[in-house]
């Protein structure tokens, strides 16, 4: 087991909100290896977004150990070991597409020429050529999300954290971006942690699907997705695809995923906790 380095190592990670009134996560153990595409799936409020933020050191865990690239999570954040993509693109309105993509490079103090080159590569990677000097409000939702993916990958982080990145998009855009994401993942060689609500999206994209139960969030089971790589439009037609979906669904049911109340306010709690920093 130990011959390969581990990108993310979680040991007994737990998280309580509101002074212990809400147990969001309990005893999470998980190892993620280089190049993996791991989806976290579970009902609303199961703490999957919280888990993602704990890995990224945007939230502190209440207990347990988080190791990213052999370092503590805060150190990994300071070393810019990961890029992050949210459900909303979170682009800066006052910056053009180019400047949005180059924001992390600016923060890291890259010199202008090197920055320009990398931004051009990124624009090509996410197929936004010709839109470099557009402003975010001039782009469709799908294009905005591609800008935010390019921004997250601009500095070549070994780890990509994605928090329901396609949740706000329509089905057709979503399927197209799924394919694009797989292509980008192959090209960049990053490790991806992907939070989603969609079973089929999780199975289609991932090498492993981690199913998390309703509150308190625990890992109910992990499904190894042994679908052929590279995946394409036909992948969804394969019998194995349907079987894997059934497996994930059964695990979700076991974890109470189908009787959990919708919108149980995990997001609100995060916002309240973070407050004005």
């Amino acid at each position, binding site marked *: 087991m130990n011959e390969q380095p581990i990108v993310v190592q979680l040991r007994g990670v737990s998280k309580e909100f509101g002074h212990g009134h809400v147990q969001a996560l309990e005893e999470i153990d998980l190892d993620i290896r280089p190049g993996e595409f791991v989806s976290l799936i579970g009902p609303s409020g199961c703490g999957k977004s919280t888990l993602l933020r704990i890995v990224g050191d945007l939230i502190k865990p209440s207990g347990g150990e988080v190791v990213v690239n052999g370092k503590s999570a805060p150190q990994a954040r300071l070393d810019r070991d990961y890029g992050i993509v949210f459900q909303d693109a979170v682009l800066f309105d*006052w910056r053009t597409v180019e400047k949005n993509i180059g924001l992390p490079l600016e923060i890291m103090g890259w010199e202008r020429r090197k920055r320009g080159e990398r931004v051009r590569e990124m624009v090509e990677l996410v197929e936004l050529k010709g839109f470099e000097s557009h402003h975010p409000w001039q782009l469709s939702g799908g294009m905005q999300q591609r800008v935010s993916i390019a921004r997250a990958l601009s500095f070549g982080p070994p780890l990509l954290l994605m928090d329901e990145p396609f949740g706000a998009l329509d089905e057709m855009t979503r399927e197209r971006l799924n394919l694009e994401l797989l292509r980008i993942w192959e090209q960049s060689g990053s490790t991806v942690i992907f939070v989603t609500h969609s079973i089929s999206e999780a199975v289609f994209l991932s090498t492993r699907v981690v199913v998390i139960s309703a509150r308190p969030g625990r890992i109910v089971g992990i499904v190894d997705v042994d679908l052929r790589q590279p995946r394409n439009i036909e992948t969804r037609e394969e019998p194995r695809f349907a079987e894997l979906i059934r497996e994930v669904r059964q695990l979700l049911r076991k974890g109470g995923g189908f009787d959990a109340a919708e919108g149980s306010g995990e997001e609100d709690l995060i916002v309240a906790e973070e407050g004005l920093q």
Partner: protein
Amino acid sequence: MATVAAEHPGRGIPWRPALTRLGMMAIVLVALCSLWEAFKWVGETTGLRLGSFEVNDKTFPHLYDIVGQLFEPSRRNGPLLIEVLWDAALFTAKEAAVGFALGASVGFLLGVLLAHSRLLQRGFLPYIVASQTIPILAVAPMVVVWFGGRGFPDWFSVSIISAYLTFFPVTINTLRGLTSVDPRALELMRSSAANPLQILWKLRMPTSLPYLFAAFKISATASVVGAIIGELPASIQDGLGGAILNFNQYYSSRPESLWATNLIAAALGITFFLVVVVAERLVVRRAPENVA
């Protein structure tokens, strides 16, 4: 690319919105003038009285008389009134501009400071609010005493009074703007390990710009009002405040002069406002629907 970017509405015909706006302004101006003259006509023909208020050429001069007064000599063998008022307006503009710059800077710095500490907000905000409940006329004489004859030019104390009216909206809106940042955007900055100065400069500042300019618009006109009022206790004769005081004494013989002065004071306030609007257009890059 299948998806097409949403275009700016009306970008192809940039002159049309401007023309519509100008047309609308002209219509409203004509309507207001008509209303004035109509009220005067009705009041005079019916002998309308509201208590001791009577509509006549003293209380309600004809608009053409007011405008015409601008081109009459201000006193016997003196320069035209408009020349006098032009010089006075320039003088007051200087006081107001310095006051605005001072007030906006102090207000902004105060806002930045308060935005970074809840504790400072709790401690200072009540007093900042209290400062605005004290009538400017009560503060002005003290300011004149403090700054008069201490090496500052006379008009500088007027600028201080003007700044006193200016800083408050800027502080409140800076505070509001800097703290209204999308929490996701903050997470994004933290994920790139941005330092506090980068977060301030690359995220909080641009986010707060529209708030800031909303405050500048209020402050710009307030700075003119502050300068005019400030001239009274400072006994400064060279500005519009001095002119208002002067023509007030001659109101019974020449009411049009005071009205004309008010007209010029209003024009100065509008000019200050427009300068801020133009600056905003140049500085703030925002989705068109977010630009006031």
